[in-house]
């Protein structure tokens, strides 16, 4: 039997005989993908209803309309509105029991009916980030709509105003007729302007002709980053053997056979590669089955997994050639894996990093594997990712081979 294959086979065999570490490193990314994906999955997202307090110091016709706007139709699903006195509202905001307090000042309805400017006050809860902003946007939209209505129908409102603030039993149909006719004409005019709308918004996603486009689920977004991060951990522990064999004395025994150091190095790197390759496919199949991951091009994935495993094996052969003890190795390798994972997009989306950091992410295998996998999932050939990972792997292997051969 070829000595290289003997070394490789033994390494693989040893992992299968003591599989606890490998199983753990395969399970963790699958579990993490599942947990994070489930928590942030859009299908399961039910936003909490936003608690809004309203201090209605006006109590008039328009303020009542405003209050109803919060609890009508779709707004009802978004907001929980409660009317409170302003000091009570402030207290509740301070106690983080509401997202915002809308203060409708005294005379609000009256001034609007007189087509005079008014000011609404929205007090936001500073300890909340997004919910007060949603409330603010909603109040802004309402204000804009109300303003538009009052400007368009200002003549009619002026005519109706005495009736709106008085008893409806005093209003006669004859007195209203001229204003109703004017309002009808304006409604028709507005409708003719808005129906049909000149601008229509159609929502759709980008499609490339001739390619099987797939929209990626949150699991598909998460999986490659998690998988590559734990592949690095797997490879780190497998290639640690280069130092462990020296400490155990097995290296001396191995090299005191007809095997040449270059064959030993090659056997160890290929052994590491095979263990990582095997572990990676278990991860892929587990995630594909559990989270319904779909890969448009399995052949592209196969290429990507091959090059990323080759890179990881060569990289950790190199780092273990640079240090003398296993303790030093873990002091170097663990931070390197974490830096790769943070910069490369395994831990958080690259878009959230600063521009400088985004530039650095190009030097991590995580970045190239993640982008390459997303491309392959959509059916696009991940050429740049394959090229960069292959170059990384070749350089690391050359350095590792040179250093190890010198040290063995």
């Amino acid at each position, binding site marked *: 039997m070829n000595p290289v294959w003997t070394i490789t086979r033994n390494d693989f065999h040893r992992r299968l005989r003591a599989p606890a570490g490998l199983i753990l490193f395969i399970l963790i990314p699958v579990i993490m993908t599942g947990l994070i994906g489930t928590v942030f999955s859009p299908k399961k997202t039910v936003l909490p209803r936003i608690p809004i307090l309203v201090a209605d110091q006006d109590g008039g016709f328009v303020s009542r309309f405003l209050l109803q706007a919060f609890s009508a139709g779709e707004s009802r699903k978004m907001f929980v509105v409660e009317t409170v006195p302003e000091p009570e509202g402030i207290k509740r905001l301070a106690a983080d029991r509401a997202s915002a307090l809308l203060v409708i000042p005294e005379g609000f309805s009256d001034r609007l009916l007189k087509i005079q400017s008014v000011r609404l006050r929205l007090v936001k809860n500073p300890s909340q980030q997004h919910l007060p902003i949603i409330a603010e946007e909603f109040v802004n939209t309402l204000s804009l709509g109300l303003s538009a209505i009052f400007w368009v129908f200002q003549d009619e409102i002026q005519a109706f105003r005495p009736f709106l603030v008085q008893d409806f039993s005093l209003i006669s149909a004859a007195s209203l007729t001229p204003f109703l006719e004017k309002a009808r004409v304006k409604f028709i005019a507005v409708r003719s302007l808005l129906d049909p709308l000149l601008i229509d918004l159609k929502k759709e996603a980008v499609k490339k002709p001739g390619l099987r486009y797939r929209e990626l689920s949150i699991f598909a977004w998460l999986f490659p980053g998690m998988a590559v991060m734990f592949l690095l951990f797997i490879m780190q522990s497998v290639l640690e053997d280069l130092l462990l064999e020296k400490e155990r*004395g*097995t290296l001396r*025994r191995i090299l005191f*056979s007809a095997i040449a150091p270059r064959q030993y190095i090659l056997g160890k790197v290929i052994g590491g590669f095979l263990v990582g390759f095997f572990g990676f496919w278990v991860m892929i199949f587990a995630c594909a089955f559990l989270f319904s991951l779909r890969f448009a091009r399995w052949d592209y994935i196969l290429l990507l997994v091959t090059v990323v495993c080759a890179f990881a094996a060569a990289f950790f052969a190199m780092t273990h050639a640079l240090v003398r003890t296993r303790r030093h190795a873990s002091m170097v390798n663990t931070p390197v894996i974490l830096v790769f994972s943070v910069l490369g997009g395994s831990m958080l989306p690259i878009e959230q990093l600063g521009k400088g950091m985004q530039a650095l992410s190009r030097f991590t295998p995580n970045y190239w594997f993640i982008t390459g996998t997303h491309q392959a999932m959509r059916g696009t050939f991940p050429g740049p990712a394959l090229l960069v990972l292959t170059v990384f792997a070749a350089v690391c292997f050359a350095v590792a081979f040179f250093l190890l051969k010198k040290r063995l």
Partner: protein
Amino acid sequence: MYSEILLEVKGISKNYDTVAALSDFSVTVEKGEIVGLLGPNGAGKTTLISILSGTLPGFSGSVHFHGSDLFRDRMVRNRIGIVPQEMAFYEELTAADNLAFFGRLHGLEGADLKRRIAAMLEVVELDSRSREKVKQFSGGMKRRLNLAIGMLHQPELLLLDEPTVGIDVQAKVRILDIIRRAGSEGTGVIFTTHQLAEVEELCSRIVVMDHGKVLASGTLPELVRVVGEKEIVSIEGEFSILRMQEILAADRFYEILAILDDRVELALERSDMIPRVLEILLRQGIHVRDLKIKSPNLETLFLKLTGRSLRD
């Protein structure tokens, strides 16, 4: 008795910085010969084995096996077996798996490999435990497996680096028995130890070494003759080394082998000289606690050659 030279080590020198670990060290091993390298810790035994096993570069001198340069012709190594001091195998594998792996590295395959594994497991009495993971083995069983791996490919020469260290007496006896049998079957053996009894019991030739140098070499009777046909007296008492040196320097009808912390070893021509020695010591106020009369052995030789005990 032995005719064919298997291994010839010539003028090996190795320094660690300014400290000489081996200096101009030479030894030969013939077919079926068990050569014991005897020396205290730091004598250079493991350095020599490391050099022979090719894992310690930066030395001068030459090593030939059957006339071939051991470090140039890798294939020669398949004819040599090494048993390092460490338990050099994989604890997560079974004894049979370990033997299979190292057997393949030495070119054994298929039925031949299986046959050799079965035979070796029987020799080291691990055949009933061959499918158990090695991490479940006792220290003695691990030592036997370590030896079995080195002997699996039926090497012509065995390099054993303290193969009995850290195991109980029973396990030690078994291992020594296996080595003796290998020697009787024609395998040349280099055996390092600091256990006098092992060397006396097992080795056909003994090389006494200290500080990287060969102090004496020969069979046990040859080495004992170096001390001479004398009575060895070991006196234990309470004294300082300097004081004892002063006292004993005055009169020289004895040979001082060693003066240690609380013990002095002297070689006397005849046993009737012992009262004279005691008289000198008592006259000088030395409190003698114990006195033993021994025949010359390796320990007295070592004391004579180095001035210190092997246990030091």
